C-alpha cells in the first residue's frame, strides 16, 4: 500500500477542523467549507448509492444547509435550544482516491450528544469528497452512514 502521508495529514487536519466547528457550533464558518453544488447526505439505507432517487434522513444542497443552520441558531427551535453539547471523535481516516481535482476519504466517527442530561451515541462511517483549492479543501459531498440508520433514531437537532 502506497501511502501519501502529506495528503493524509492535510485530510486529517481538515476533517478535524470541520468536526471542531460542528461541535462548537461554528455553523456559519462550516457553511463556507462547501462547494456550491455540494451535498450533505445522511442516508436511511446504507446500501443505497442513488441518493437523489431515495428517501434520506437528510439530503441538503446549499439552500437546505443554510436553512438547517438558520434553524439551529435563530432561537426558534425548541429542540435545537435543548441540545447541550456534542463531542465527536474522528478516526481511522483513510484516503481512498486522490487526484488534482478530487480527494475521496473515509473515516469513522463516534458522536456523543448530551440532551436533557442523557448521553446518546451515534457511531458512523463518513465519506468525504473533497475538492482541493488554493485555500484548502472544499467539501463537495459528505455522506454520513449512521450505524443504526434504518433503526429507530432519536430526533437530531445538530449537524453530523
Amino acid at each position, binding site marked *: 500500500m502506497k501511502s501519501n502521508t502529506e495528503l493524509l495529514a492535510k485530510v486529517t487536519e481538515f476533517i478535524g477542523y470541520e468536526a471542531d466547528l460542528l461541535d462548537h457550533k461554528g455553523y456559519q464558518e462550516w457553511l463556507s467549507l462547501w462547494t456550491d453544488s455540494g451535498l450533505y447526505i445522511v442516508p436511511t439505507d446504507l446500501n443505497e448509492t442513488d441518493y437523489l432517487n431515495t428517501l434520506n434522513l437528510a439530503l441538503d444542497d446549499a439552500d437546505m444547509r443554510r436553512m438547517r443552520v438558520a434553524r439551529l441558531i435563530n432561537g426558534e427551535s425548541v429542540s435545537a435550544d435543548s441540545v447541550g453539547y456534542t463531542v465527536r471523535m474522528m478516526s481511522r481516516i483513510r484516503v481512498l482516491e486522490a487526484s488534482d481535482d478530487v480527494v475521496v476519504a473515509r473515516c469513522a466517527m463516534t458522536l456523543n450528544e448530551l440532551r436533557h442530561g442523557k448521553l446518546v451515541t451515534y457511531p458512523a462511517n463518513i465519506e468525504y469528497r473533497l475538492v482541493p483549492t488554493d485555500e484548502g479543501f472544499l467539501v463537495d459531498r459528505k455522506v454520513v452512514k449512521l450505524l443504526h440508520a434504518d433503526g429507530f433514531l432519536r*430526533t437530531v437537532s445538530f449537524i453530523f
Partner: protein
Amino acid sequence: MSELIELQDISLKAADMVEEGRVHKSLYSDPEIFEEELDKVFNNTWVFVGHESEVPDSGSFKTSFVGRHPVILTRDRKGNLHVLQNRCRHRGATVCEGRKGKTKALTCPYHGWGYGLDGSLRALPKPEEYDGVFDKKDMSLESLRFETYQGMVFATFKDDIEPLVDFLGGAKKWIDLFAKQGGGYPMKVLGEHRFNFPGNWKIQLENTTDAYHFPIVHKSFVSSLDDATADIFDFLDGEGFVEDLGHGHSVMVMIPELVDLEADLDQPIPARFEALAAELREEGKSEDEVKKLVRAAHGTGFNLNLFPNVSCSMAFFRVLRPVSVGETEIQHVALGGEGAPQAFNRKRMRLHEHFQGPMGFGTPDDGEAWERVQKGSQSGKDGWILVNRGMTRLRTSVDGNPQGAVCSETGMRGAYQQYKKMMAAGSTTNTAPAEEK
C-alpha cells in the same frame, strides 16, 4: 381537592379517567393502564400494518406489529396478501427479520422449519419424528384477519370485528381524497423515516389532530419557507376545521384549498414548484398533467387521524407503535406515485425530508414537546390534561358530524371517547392472545 379525592379512589379505572373535556395524566404514565390498553384497544380493533405497495410482488414481505405482536405482511406466489404472526409454530422464534424484502420462504433459523409466504408449513428436517404427532397442514403460521382500503392494510386479532369499511365509516371519504397524492398515478410508498420518543403513544395520537401547536412548535420550519408557502401554513385564522368522524377517527383540515388535489387545476404554478414543472415539461408532459402533478406534489391540506395507530398526514402516513408506557416508535412513511415521473417522486421525497423524520425541520421540535409532556405528567400526585378547547363552539358538518375550529381539540375528544368505550368494555375477546407483562 375533589380531584385528589377522585384519584384516591383506587377503583378509578382508565375509562373513568377520560371525561368529556379532560383526561387524567395517569393515562400517560401508569404501566398497568398501558398493559390494559394493549389488551382492550390494540387487540380489539383494526390496526394498520402497511400499504399494499410495500409488498408489490409475489415473495414480497414486510415486518410490522399489531400492538406488541410482531407480524409479517406477505404476498404469496399467487399474489394474495397475508398477515401472519411472526412466530414459528415449533419453539416460537421469529421466522422473518428485517424491514422488508423478497424471499422464497420464511425459514425459522432455530430448527429449519420452512413456511411458504401464505404461512403454510412446507418442510422441516427429519419429519418422521412427528409421525402420528401432528399433521403438517395444521401447523401453518397463525394468520390474522385483515382487510384493505385504498391499499392500506389493516389487521386484527378480533375475528368477529365489524368489516373494515364499517369501522372506517366517515373516514373513507377522506382516505379517498388522500389517495390522490400520486398525481394521477397509484399511491406508492417511497421510503420511511423511523424514530422514537420517550413518551406515551397517545401523545402522538393527539398531536396529529392538534393544529394549535403548529405556529409555536414549528416556527423554525415556517421561517425556512418562502413567503408564499409560509402564508399557506398560517392557517389558524383560516376556514379550516376539525371534524369528529366517529370510531375515534377525525380529520383536521388546515388548508381547505388543498382538500381535493384534483380540483382547481387551473391555478398558476407556485414559485417553489417551478423547477419541478420545468423538469416535467422537459419530459414531455402536457401542461394539464404538469399542473396535476404539481398540485399533488403539495400533499393534501388535511390530517386524517385513524384510531388507534395511523394517520394520513398531509402527504405521508404517520404510524405509531406503543413500546412501553413511556416509549413510542413512529414511522413517517413517504408517499409518491407508482410509475409517476421520477422528478415528481424526487420532489415528494425532498419535501418529506424537509419536515419529517428524525432530522427534519419539524419532527425534532414535536419530539421535544412530547418528551416534555411525558416528563411533566410525572409531576404532582394528581393532574388532568385538557382537551376541551373549542368544546362549546361546535357546529354540525355537512356529513352530520361534530365540527369545531381548526385549532379546536375536537379530534382528540373523539379519539378519547373511542378509547373510553374500548377501555370500559369487558375483558379481551377470546381470539386475542393474552398480554404478557
